[in-house]
């Protein structure tokens, strides 16, 4: 099978290619006859992309950056990212921003209830859309003119878009306490891009891995774990979403998605903390669909409490990382 890990080894490279960013690039015997030999030996590929440096400067006023990741789609990355942002924003002292890098399926605008908003640009960059005084968001969804408009882009264009988001968004005056980054499913272009651009940003606190209880979902999360390890990103913890369902009529619990030992094992082998188990709650789906604030409409619900608890844990973890 082909080499899957070395990102700087091109897919069609000669067998013993040392990788384009290696100090041996262009110098080993395998490079003889490779059309890229002169480029590699010039050292050009080893130069740091100037954008990475600029991004570091732009994001220097952000205290904590948190990535929300999952190998699987539809497990609730956006839901967790949005409600977590809202939970954190309940503290009026904090300034929270949410960045949606799901280029092909941006759901953050809808879930925050700002679907029809547009982004304005000024001299200092793109202004994000403000949901409340201390919560703002940025998404490809704000740049599209209609709901039907599909973003049928290949990798490089998506990479560019993400670069622009990190580089050109003006998150406002003063410091941003939390920048939460919502990602698409998988381990591909978007993930490589965001990790690549953020690798030198010291305020990257780490990532939250979201999963549902099924083995089918865990299987993809394990893949994400190996991605996270390769990319050397700190894991703040795992969130189990859609854990159980409590019937609204008889109040008995049932498991919609089969649960078993897999998640506990995953946490134990990797020494990750299971931050919280979020039940399936029709209110959550409704709130996200309507763009309402869960904490305003159903502040007493048990799910709201689970989320507030999660927000506290995240804050503590970020604090710990700093010290």
């Amino acid at each position, binding site marked *: *099978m082909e080499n*899957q*890990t070395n*990102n700087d080894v091109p*897919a069609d490279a000669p067998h013993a290619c040392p990788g384009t960013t290696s100090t041996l690039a262009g110098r080993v015997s395998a490079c003889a006859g490779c059309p890229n030999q002169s480029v590699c030996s010039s050292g050009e590929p080893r130069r740091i992309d100037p954008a990475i440096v600029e991004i570091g400067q732009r994001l220097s006023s952000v205290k904590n950056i948190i990535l929300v990741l999952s*190998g*699987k*789609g*539809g*497990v609730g990355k*956006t839901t967790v990212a949005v409600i977590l942002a809202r939970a954190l924003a309940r503290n009026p002292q904090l300034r929270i921003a949410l960045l949606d890098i799901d280029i*092909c*399926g941006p*759901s953050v605008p*809808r*879930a925050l209830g700002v679907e029809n908003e547009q982004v304005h640009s000024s001299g200092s960059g793109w202004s994000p859309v403000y949901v409340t005084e201390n919560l703002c968001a940025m998404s490809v969804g704000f740049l599209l003119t209609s*709901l*039907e*408009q*599909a*973003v*049928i882009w*290949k*990798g490089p264009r*998506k990479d560019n878009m993400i670069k622009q988001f990190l580089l050109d968004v003006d998150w406002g005056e003063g410091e941003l306490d939390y920048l939460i980054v919502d990602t*698409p*499913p*998988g*381990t*591909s*272009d978007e993930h*490589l891009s965001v990790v690549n651009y953020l690798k030198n940003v010291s305020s990257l606190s780490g990532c939250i891995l979201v999963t549902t209880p*099924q*083995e*089918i979902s865990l*299987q*993809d999360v*394990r*893949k*994400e774990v*190996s*991605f996270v390890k*390769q990319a050397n990103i700190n894991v703040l913890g795992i969130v189990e979403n859609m854990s159980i*369902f409590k*019937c609204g*009529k*008889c109040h*008995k619990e*049932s*498991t*919609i*998605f*089969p649960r078993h030992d897999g998640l506990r094992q995953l946490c134990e082998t990797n020494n990750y903390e299971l931050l919280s188990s979020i039940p*399936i709650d*029709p209110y959550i*789906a*409704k709130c*996200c*669909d*309507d763009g309402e604030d869960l904490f305003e409409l159903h502040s007493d619900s048990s799910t709201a409490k689970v989320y507030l608890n999660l927000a506290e844990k995240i804050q503590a973890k970020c604090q710990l990382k700093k010290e």
Partner: protein
Amino acid sequence: MSGLDKIKRIIVVLSGKGGVGKSTVTTQVALSLYNSGYRVGLLDVDLCGPSIPKMFGVDKNSKESVVYETPEGMTPVDVFATSSDSSRFKLMSMALLLDSENDAVIWRGPRKVAMIQRLLTGVKWGELDYLIIDTPPGTSDEHIAVMTVLKQHEHAKEFLRAILVTTPQMLSINDVRREITFCHKTSFHIIGLIENMSGYVCPHCSECTNIFAQGGGTLLAEQYSIPFLGRLPIDNRLNAILDQGITKVDNGLETISETETMKLFKNIINQILDRWE
């Protein structure tokens, strides 16, 4: 000459959103067609998160599931090889080509495109009535690659159809809207829309709760004049079997065929077959 030459019909299962049940629906379509006596192939082009082998209980470490490289292409896995007509259900997925189950495929677009081309044209399917293709979420490299490769095929062109899957939520509906635009732009014929995870029946009191809202699918189908193929509730039994793997459960094929949603699926399959002409 490519692996697609002897295939009569191709169905691509699409959805803009992740986790709405593309793989589950793909499995249901394939099993229903298999149960009707057709020769079925199932191709999983989700490179980063392939779920199909797991759902069928196909373990790449077992002897029966080894993929061989032959001059005519890679050999797919015979799933129900123990039954009397052994080679009527074939399966191919990225997961079968990886060394370890936990390996992540961390590839950028161009590499994924090359792999998809190989999976589409380099598999020795033999004669098939239907090839069902499961896709990853979104409208990006993988989808463009699938479309480009399939459209080069004179033969495939006439026999190519798409099924769209959504959940009733508006969040999912919006992503499917984008997928419809993708289908229109690439002039891909949509045979219909399936609304999945439509309600959950409490096993204790039989009260049906619409966990993910309701009615979004019909609305969308009307709006874009796409045939609405049906509504599938959340099915605990089906989920449990697929999570273990069909061939890992005793009488898995029979048990899964008796689940509520598989029964509902008969009607959906009939509609698909009727509308094909």
